[in-house]
């Protein structure tokens, strides 16, 4: 049955590599279809209420145990990669060996319960923080992607100095301390845990791992030790990165087994196998978990209350310029702030795929519970491209509803606010018009002012809040025109076409 491990590794690579590269790809060359691999992740499927995916994952887990954790989950596979890499740093004699450890039931069930309760109370704070797929997305987009871009830019520098422009310079991922901090924290945590303790992150912290563990207890296939052939040599236990095989008592803790099949390859005696759970009559040992319920209840209620209290706190107000306290501008397809905040897990997929890099992980723009959810951050030359709907088509959680390109062109992310007293035309009495020049719908257009000068005017019904005007306004640091985000994304009216010119011109005019 050693082939099972190889199949597991092959599947893991097939799922992991495209996801990993898709997050890194800053050239937009990889096909967008890869985003479908994100839609089969458990939490995104749950949030987008994708019954087909949920059904398949349920059936898979009930059949084979936690193979999700071993193949589909990119954070799980990343840990396997780290564990595998760690071998190169160990002395041969100190080759990694695991020992059985007791499950940390209080901790893992508490985390799961608290996450669920807090979510039901209306805050996705813990889901954002703990969803393994989103954690992976943040680690790659905040830590690996910048490295890839640095590498590319170094090559671009060398090559363009020689007149070769195969590589071109790419704008570095903008540094958002909050998102970077959380990403590096989780990266260090999972590196440390996987380095020394295999899959202990998945079995103590990850709420997805814990809930799949509850299912895999009943899976049709599972790992079991053949009492007749087992010599209690402990070879399987030493290879078990979930630390769930107890060779002394010949028991395997199914709730923590991630179906990696390393144990099968380790056993030379055929003492451990992957087969039917229900073939022999055997009563499932009832685990002590009832005793947790009271503590779990207390913990979760406490956490829920704290989270509810925190979710209400808005960011500090009272700054000089109204632009500093503006409402955040949500990506297209977010529909409304409640839907968006509830469904987005801050996986950074849209942020990574945004060709303009106008999407950035939020700090406190959405309050403390919306940390790392994307918002539009306009700066010179950086605004939402009119002819683009990539973010709405890649979102795996349904936080961003898919928008056809024509719908997206009419979706109001916000409304431009023009401040005449700051405008160059008013303040200096000089022509400018950069805002109107960049406005794709001509919601910002120029009207006659005085002495042949023209000054911008905003037609709110035409404005879609793309921020092109704000991005190019020469008035800095607080531009004379800026986008105030819409709490509920409305629909702009379609810009009217100008009158066609039909007269025939057949003279130069000079």
């Amino acid at each position: 049955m050693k082939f099972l491990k190889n199949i597991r590794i092959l599947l893991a690579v097939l799922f992991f590599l495209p996801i990993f590269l898709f997050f890194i790809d800053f050239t937009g060359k990889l096909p967008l279809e890869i985003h479908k691999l994100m839609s089969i992740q458990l939490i995104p499927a749950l949030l987008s209420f994708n019954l087909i995916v949920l059904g398949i994952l349920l059936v898979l887990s009930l059949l084979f145990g936690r193979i999700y954790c071993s193949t589909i989950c990119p954070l799980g596979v990343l840990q396997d990669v780290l564990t595998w890499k760690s071998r190169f740093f160990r002395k041969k004699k100190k080759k990694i060996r695991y020992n059985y450890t007791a499950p940390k039931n209080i901790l893992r069930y508490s985390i799961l319960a608290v996450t669920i309760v807090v979510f039901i109370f209306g805050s996705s704070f813990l889901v954002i923080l703990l969803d393994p797929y989103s954690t992976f997305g943040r680690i790659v987009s905040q830590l690996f992607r910048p490295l890839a871009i640095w590498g590319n830019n170094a090559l671009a520098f060398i090559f363009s100095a020689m007149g070769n422009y195969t590589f071109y310079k790419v704008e570095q991922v903008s540094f958002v301390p909050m998102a970077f901090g959380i990403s590096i924290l989780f990266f260090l945590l999972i590196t440390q845990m996987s380095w020394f303790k295999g899959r202990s992150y998945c079995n103590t912290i990850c709420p997805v791992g814990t809930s799949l563990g509850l299912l895999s207890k009943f899976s049709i296939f599972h790992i079991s030790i053949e009492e007749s052939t087992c010599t209690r040599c402990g070879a399987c236990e030493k290879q078990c990165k979930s630390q769930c095989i107890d060779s002394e008592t010949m028991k395997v803790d199914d709730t923590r087994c991630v179906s990696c099949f390393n144990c099968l390859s380790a056993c030379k005696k055929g003492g451990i196998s992957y087969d039917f759970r229900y073939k022999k009559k055997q009563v499932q040992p009832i685990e002590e978990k009832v005793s947790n319920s009271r503590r779990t209840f207390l913990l979760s209620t406490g956490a829920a209350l704290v989270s509810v209290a925190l979710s209400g706190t808005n960011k500090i107000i009272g700054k000089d310029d109204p632009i500093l306290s503006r409402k955040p501008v949500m990506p297209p397809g977010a529909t409304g702030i409640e839907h968006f905040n509830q469904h987005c897990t801050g996986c950074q997929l849209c942020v990574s795929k945004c060709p303009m890099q106008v999407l950035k992980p939020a700090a406190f723009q959405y309050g403390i519970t919306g940390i790392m959810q994307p918002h539009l951050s306009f700066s010179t030359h950086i605004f939402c491209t009119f002819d683009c709907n990539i973010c709405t088509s890649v979102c795996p959680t349904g936080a961003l509803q898919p928008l056809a390109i024509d719908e997206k062109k009419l979706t109001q992310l916000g409304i431009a606010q023009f401040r005449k007293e700051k405008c160059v035309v008013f303040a200096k009495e000089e022509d400018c018009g950069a805002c109107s020049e960049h406005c794709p719908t001509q919601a910002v257009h120029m009207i006659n002012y005085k002495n042949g000068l023209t000054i911008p005017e905003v037609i709110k019904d035409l404005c879609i809040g793309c921020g092109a005007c704000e991005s190019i306004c020469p008035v800095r640091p607080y531009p004379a025109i800026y986008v105030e985000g819409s709490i509920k994304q409305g629909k702009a009216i379609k810009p009217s076409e100008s009158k066609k010119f039909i007269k025939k011109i057949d003279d130069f005019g000079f």
Partner: protein
Amino acid sequence: MKRRDFFKSAAVVGIASFFKTNALGSVLTGEPVAVHSQPDLVAVMGGEPAVMLARALKELGGIGHFVKKGQKVVIKPNIGWDRTPELGANTNPELVGALVKMCKGAGASQVIVFDHTCHDWKKSYTNSGIERAVLAAGGKMVPANDESYYAEVDFPRGVNLKKAKVHKALLECDVWFNVPVLKHHGGAKNTISMKNLMGIVWDRSFFHSHDLHQCIADAATFHKKPALNIVDAYRIMKTNGPQGKSASDVVKLKSLLVSPDYVAVDAASMKLFSQVVPTDMKDVRYIALAEKNRVGTQNLEKLNVKRIKL
């Protein structure tokens, strides 16, 4: 050399450079000159872009007059927007392709094309059709999306614009062509050859915050003049420029205006444009300001203008 002779020749050189007449300069440097009156401005109407270009260049002495064997050539079209050719927001790709082909035919060692775009540069290069046309003709597209591609240049004759970072490809080339498209423009009223220079500099916001028209006129004092300004008026954008909203902003004039003189070609283009949308040339202030900067003349009567209808 006697002191008197020195002053004499110095005066001649001074006068020559003041009037900027190529003929005088060429006499001093000993280059052969076609003495019979070469047109200062050629306007062609009624053909396809490549045909009109070939005809205009024929009038001006052929491409070989401007591009010598082994030279590095830069072509600067307007590729500012992520728009298809039919929408008239960018220079016609056929025109750019044809020019690249001619330069290669004249023996140019390489022909580089770039623009500092307003929209995402990759999408603009692709969807304008220019990248495809340039590559097919044997030219090279170069990025302009990062400050590292630019180097600082002094504009000693500029009034507001004294310094700007200009794309290195342009600084390093032997000869360059300015190939704008004629459009309405919300900020500068109209965009033609001088406004197109905003795509060779890195920091455009300086222009917008220091009197846009004056800065455009100052940009035209850039020490390296284009061999020719080739204004694409095959499709012009009459309203909602510079991006345009739809095809109804576009009028097909099937015209091409060519001149080494920025001011003359912009003034002539404005007259052509005014037949579609009457515009007071005084409102396009940079034209008069550039004349004041002595980079050309808007007095077309003084010039040898060749008008050709195909």
